[in-house]
């Protein structure tokens, strides 16, 4: 098996042995050589005999093969020309500085000027550095290494054209049937859940009243592998909405609720919302009186809802692969040589619904995950594929227009954009909670700074859902990153109602997520959340900042004109 340039560098003083048949005239590169790590085995089995006059890998790189030779042939002075003389003083030393090894390796290449007579002048400017010669290994003409795939996620989408209530939960011929008794059974998910109902809302019958929308949840399930890799089945055309009240009829959250007519209270088509053609499966949960304001109440509602979805997931698992209408393949990459960047998603962490389940077992599920409040809101790294595969289940509830629901994370525009952009290397997505108390905010922000420093990224985008005191951490998170010399862009709803309460000099590149004409939290679900156009603006701004182009100072007050003007750049 041939070796990489890196392996060749590490085995610079080991014998050079051809890995495969090579023809006369071949200019030897790493890809022609066998891995010295397996020589002991090869020698033991008699496949390889090393002789006294074997050349080292360092000597043969760039040399020319003078005759055809078989695999497992050690290269000797008889077989190759233009090899380098051995530098003995280097042997036996463990070289950890790869660039030094690479440089000395290239020194052994040859430019030959056999000049018999020269009339004229050779002028070489000051600064000529003879230790670096402009040669690349011939068989590896690209200096820039290929992106390496770390893991692959396949998402198969299955169309849902009808949803019914029936005797058995099943999914066949684009018809989803949900078992009638399932809701009652879901009460056992948590004793705080006193009632659960389910109804189906087709796209053309949306003018119905609804209690506050606690979440929008995609129906997806693993059929192979764990979250972030393997295969996931996803339903297209149907989505769950979770609503809730307590036994006294109080909306599960007194503030920031969005009860009202569904057609008026949802901005359809946002990453987190139902799409215009989606069938909504509405699950309405009643929790024990007065627990709506406690952490356990809303969470119980999510558990019951997840119980119901799980049975639907089991049916979805059985859907035959060939019935899928769309197959998306997502990769996590290791990209060498591209600027390392990170996406930081600040999420609510102040208790009750201001909380998120991180990494449930099923995509967008509840079970198996842990809540960021229980992780002390410290930063946690997910791979882009883990996020895209439903790694976050949002419990967040307020305010409607600016909250990021579960579906939002499932289709996060910045994650998708940054992961697929081939000018950058998105190394991961950091989720950091926003605690209540300022000291705690500072504590977790400082850990974000230490993490960003260790990640050695050149750029970062920091987003936050909602507004309020989470803007304090938002500012601090940006500062912790920015003062380490990392270029940083922030994205949040601020506008009029959510104007930033603190600021610092690193907040010079901000993306406004507001979509309300007056700059208010307008109580329309997901209206002012991060959309693909916002993501493009944010990434362009980050690239601009990383390229060293100065960002114009922001206006003192929010103005839609700025957004409109910037939006032009990406159209």
């Amino acid at each position, binding site marked *: 098996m041939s070796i990489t340039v890196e392996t060749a560098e590490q085995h610079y003083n080991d014998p050079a042995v051809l890995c495969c048949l090579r023809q006369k005239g071949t200019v030897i590169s790493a890809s022609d050589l066998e891995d010295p790590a397996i020589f002991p085995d090869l020698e033991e089995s008699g496949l390889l005999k090393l002789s006294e006059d074997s050349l080292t890998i360092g000597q043969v790189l760039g040399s020319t093969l003078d005759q055809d030779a078989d695999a497992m042939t050690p290269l000797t002075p008889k077989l190759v020309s233009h090899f380098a003389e051995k530098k003995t003083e280097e042997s036996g030393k463990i070289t950890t500085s790869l660039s030094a090894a690479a440089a000395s390796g290239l020194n052994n290449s040859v430019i030959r000027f056999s000049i018999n007579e020269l009339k004229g002048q050779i002028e070489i400017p000051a600064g000529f550095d003879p230790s670096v010669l402009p040669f690349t290994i011939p068989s590896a003409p690209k200096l820039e290494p290929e992106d390496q795939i770390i893991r692959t996620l396949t998402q198969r989408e299955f169309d849902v054209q009808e949803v019914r209530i029936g005797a058995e939960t099943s999914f066949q011929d684009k018809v989803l049937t949900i078992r009638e008794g399932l809701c009652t059974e879901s009460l056992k998910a948590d004793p705080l859940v006193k009632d659960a109902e389910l109804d189906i809302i087709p796209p053309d019958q949306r003018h119905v009243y609804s209690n506050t929308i606690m979440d929008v949840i995609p129906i997806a399930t693993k059929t192979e592998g764990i979250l972030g890799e393997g295969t996931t089945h996803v339903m297209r055309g149907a989505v769950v909405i979770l609503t809730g009240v307590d036994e006294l009829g109080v909306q599960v959250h*007194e503030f920031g609720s969005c009860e009202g007519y569904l057609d008026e209270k949802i901005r359809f088509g946002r990453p987190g919302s139902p799409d215009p053609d989606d069938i909504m499966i509405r699950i309405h949960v009643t929790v024990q009186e007065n627990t709506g304001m406690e952490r356990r109440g809303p969470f119980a509602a999510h558990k019951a809802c997840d119980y119901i979805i799980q049975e639907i997931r089991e049916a979805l698992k059985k859907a035959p692969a060939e019935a899928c209408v769309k197959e998306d393949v997502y990769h996590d990459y290791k990209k060498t040589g591209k600027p390392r960047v990170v996406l930081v998603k600040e999420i609510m962490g102040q208790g009750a619904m201001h909380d998120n389940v991180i990494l449930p077992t099923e995509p967008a599920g509840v079970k198996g995950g842990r809540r960021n409040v229980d992780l002390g809101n410290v930063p946690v790294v997910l791979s882009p594929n883990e996020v895209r595969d439903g790694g976050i289940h949002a419990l967040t509830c307020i305010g409607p227009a600016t909250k990021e629901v579960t579906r939002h994370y499932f289709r996060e525009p910045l994650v998708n954009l940054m992961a697929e952009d081939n000018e950058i290397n998105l190394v991961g997505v950091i989720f950091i909670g926003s605690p209540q108390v300022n000291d705690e905010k500072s504590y977790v922000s400082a850990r974000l700074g230490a993490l960003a420093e260790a990640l050695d990224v050149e750029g970062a985008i920091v987003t936050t859902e909602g507004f309020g005191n989470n803007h304090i951490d938002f500012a601090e998170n940006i500062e912790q990153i920015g003062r380490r010399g990392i270029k940083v862009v922030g994205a949040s709803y601020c506008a009029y109602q959510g104007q930033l309460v603190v600021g610092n000099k690193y907040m010079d590149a901000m993306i406004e997520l507001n979509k309300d004409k007056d700059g208010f*939290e307008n109580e329309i679900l997901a209206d002012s959340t991060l959309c693909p156009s916002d993501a493009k603006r944010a990434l362009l701004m980050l690239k601009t900042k990383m390229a060293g182009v100065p960002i114009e100072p922001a206006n003192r007050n929010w103005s839609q004109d700025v957004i409109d003007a910037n939006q032009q750049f990406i159209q």
Partner: protein
Amino acid sequence: MDCELTPKLLPGKILEVTDLGVKVTLKGRMGIIQVPLRSVITDKSLQVGQEIRVYLSYIQVV
């Protein structure tokens, strides 16, 4: 922590009217305020559902 408290003019709606005061909910559902009748300025008699506006900032613990 030095943080800027900025009052914002917010629209809202009356939820409840009693002989003593009103309860209003703010646009964006980011708060509920109860004040005595004295603190309400109005040209018409108070009724549930009426639109209001009020300046409010975040609350700071001192």
